């Protein structure tokens, strides 16, 4: 929304929409910092090392009782015990959701990578989440049900259940007062947030935006996927395996600092070159079998990036490991890529860390950036027999590669499809 470029003036300046002018579709957006927290580890290096080792990160969930659930494991993040919010009193630390803590860690890494100590000069923060601070909502619910008496502590639970309040606490950590936009399109939220931020810069409404996504494992969400029979009973997701039987949940966060080229102050790690979103109307939770919305988003995102399918050197698929998703996505990739499909390497890193829901799109975008920087491809693990719908080059082991463009798909409940195209930058 801002016509100005500095957060120091952003909050005291009239932001008049009259400056909104669409910019060329092909304008690249520089990525100057990235942070990632996943079940595979804290930070870029730990995640790169784990992906290079084809390591998986599933373990028993101890955050709540799983005895009544079919699935009992997930990709769980080992958060550090220390207080992460340095400016907030210790007695308030309990009100910060695990996901928010992961997001804060990812933001710190992204800022550090861009050579920044704070958020000065950042015009907006666009964050995707599906569950928000659900555990706070669960606690509010349980206390309300257990006791009809008025309980003052409920105010803090109600307040901090709101994702914008959690984000406001992150802003306070940096003494930053810019706008926070929270996108919640289920499992496409993280990708949508990055695309949203790129659009803000493309249109001239912002020059520098911090964008990403997060979600932490919550009992309600775990139960939801369990009741849907969407979780792999074995706890091992096998995306694109002919006999896959479901996904594994995970948690994590990732953030990118995006900058317009004319104000870029740090070395560019890559570009956001293309973004598109569309809606699959087939069903609330199941994809159109032909993946028509995915075909549209891949086509549009590549058109914006100015690349053909054959130029895509890697696809980080949505690849949940559920029977419906993987066949729809494989069909969509085949239809979109045409004759080029056999030469396009594809994998699902959910096979290693699980499905990070609102954080998935952002984490997988950062993995694409890491792959472009390192010139490698992460694997789809645990595949025993490739599904016959797969016509692309399914990457089953970590491998070195030469690639200039990577594409990542995210599909969510409700039918939101999102595709991001990232471009390699050497500096």
């Amino acid at each position, binding site marked *: 929304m801002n016509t100005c470029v500095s957060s120091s003036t952003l909050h*005291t300046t009239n932001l008049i*929409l009259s400056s*909104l002018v669409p910019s060329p579709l092909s304008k690249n957006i520089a990525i100057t910092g990235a942070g990632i927290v996943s079940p595979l580890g804290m930070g870029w290096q730990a995640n790169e090392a784990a992906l290079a080792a084809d390591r998986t990160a599933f373990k028993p969930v101890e955050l709540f009782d799983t005895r009544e659930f079919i699935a009992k494991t997930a990709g769980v993040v080992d958060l550090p015990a220390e207080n992460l919010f340095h400016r907030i009193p210790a007695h308030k630390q309990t009100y910060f959701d695990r996901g928010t803590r992961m997001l804060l860690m990812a933001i710190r890494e992204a800022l550090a990578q861009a050579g920044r100590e704070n958020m000065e000069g950042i015009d907006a923060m666009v964050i995707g989440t599906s569950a*928000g601070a659900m555990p706070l909502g*669960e606690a509010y619910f349980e206390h309300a049900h257990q006791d009809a008496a008025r309980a003052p502590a409920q105010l803090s639970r109600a307040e901090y259940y709101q994702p914008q309040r959690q984000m406001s606490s992150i802003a306070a950590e940096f003494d930053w*007062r810019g706008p926070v936009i929270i996108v919640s399109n289920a499992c496409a939220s993280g990708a949508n947030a990055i695309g949203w931020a790129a659009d803000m810069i493309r249109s001239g409404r912002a020059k520098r935006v911090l964008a990403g996504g997060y979600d932490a494992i919550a009992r309600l969400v775990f139960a939801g996927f369990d009741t849907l029979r969407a979780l792999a009973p074995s706890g091992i997701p096998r995306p694109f395996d002919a006999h896959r039987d479901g996904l594994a949940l995970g948690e994590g966060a990732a953030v990118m600092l995006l900058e317009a080229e004319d104000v870029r102050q740090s070395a560019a790690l890559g570009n956001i070159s293309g973004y598109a979103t569309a809606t699959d109307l087939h069903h609330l939770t199941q994809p159109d079998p032909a993946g028509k919305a995915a075909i549209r988003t891949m086509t549009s995102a590549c058109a914006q990036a100015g690349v053909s399918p054959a130029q895509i050197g890697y696809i980080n698929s949505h690849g949940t490991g559920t029977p419906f998703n993987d066949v729809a996505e494989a069909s969509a990739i085949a239809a979109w890529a045409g004759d080029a499909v056999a030469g396009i390497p594809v994998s699902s890193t959910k096979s290693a860390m699980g499905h990070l829901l609102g954080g998935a799109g952002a984490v997988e975008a950062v993995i694409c950036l890491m792959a472009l920087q390192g010139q490698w491809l992460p694997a789809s693990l645990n595949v025993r027999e490739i599904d016959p719908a797969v016509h692309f080059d399914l990457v089953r082991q970590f491998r070195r590669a030469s690639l200039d463009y990577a594409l990542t798909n995210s599909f969510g409940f409700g039918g939101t499809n999102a595709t991001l195209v990232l471009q390699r930058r050497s500096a």
Partner: protein
Amino acid sequence: MNARNIRIRGVGAVSSAGWNAAAMHTAVLAGTPLPSRSCARPGDVRNWPCESRFAPPAPPEKVARHPRLRRSSAITRYSVAAALEALADAGHDPSAPPPGLGILFVMMNGCVNYTGRFYDEVLQNPAQASPLIFPETVFNAPASHVASFLGVDGAVSTLLGSPNSIMEALDTAAFWIGSGIVEECLLIAAEECDWLSAEALTYYHPKLIGSEGAGALLLSASGDGPRVSEIIGPLGYLSWQERCDLLPELAAQTLAQFQGPATLINDRTGIAKLDHTEIAAWSGRPWDAVLSPKYVLGESMGASSALQLVLGTLAVRQTQQPVVISMPGSNTAAYACVLTP
């Protein structure tokens, strides 16, 4: 193409005053708080006051038929009704929505009825929790249902946040329209109130009355309708004290944008402790009229700023004068906007 050329071509609303925008307009113009009633809670009887103003039952003509709506929660039904009214108000045939339509949805609390029901089932016995309910708990389920009902397969997105997050959505709608991503955009904000939400509001102040509803605006670059001529903000704050300190600046920046007679639509709840800073901030000039939808309708959380915008649109149409809308927010940023004929 820029947002100054964006027109609010149609509006629709469901509120505690009824299932159309006119009912809300009439109630707010009357200025008398609608009747409230004690919000029942399951199990033990509450020994402290908790009032609410729910939307009345839907009149038969407002009950939309669609497979997706059979199970959907109240928030979706409010949203569909408001969206259809906005489309009709803009001259579109609601049964054949225009091509190139996008949807931006804003909420704060979301699908609380199904979320509470599902979590209750999980606590009782996870193995018997209903798989049909869980997908309806997801924040973007209402937007998905509205999109399915209207056949919108393009850009559809849901934002979470304070009610005034609708200004960020409005800005994005203008971008979508301006860049050709969509031709027109439905901006919807909605909320449903359950006993948990109503109780939560009383922790902010014992007299705060929970409400619910939906506001919808059809935005377009062509046609007739009020313009969103100025958006002031976001003025970010990190505490209630900072918020209090910023509101005079918000008012001053807004009032510098125009002269002459105007209507003010404020955020007043009727609770002095919550209202006094905002009222003081906007008291520096005479207003032709001051409307306080929250005071009349109740605190409809994520829907409240959309209802202000719907009301503002109707006020501009009626008075042919500017309308200033104050949206101070509660925990992140303050906004104001000016609607003009």
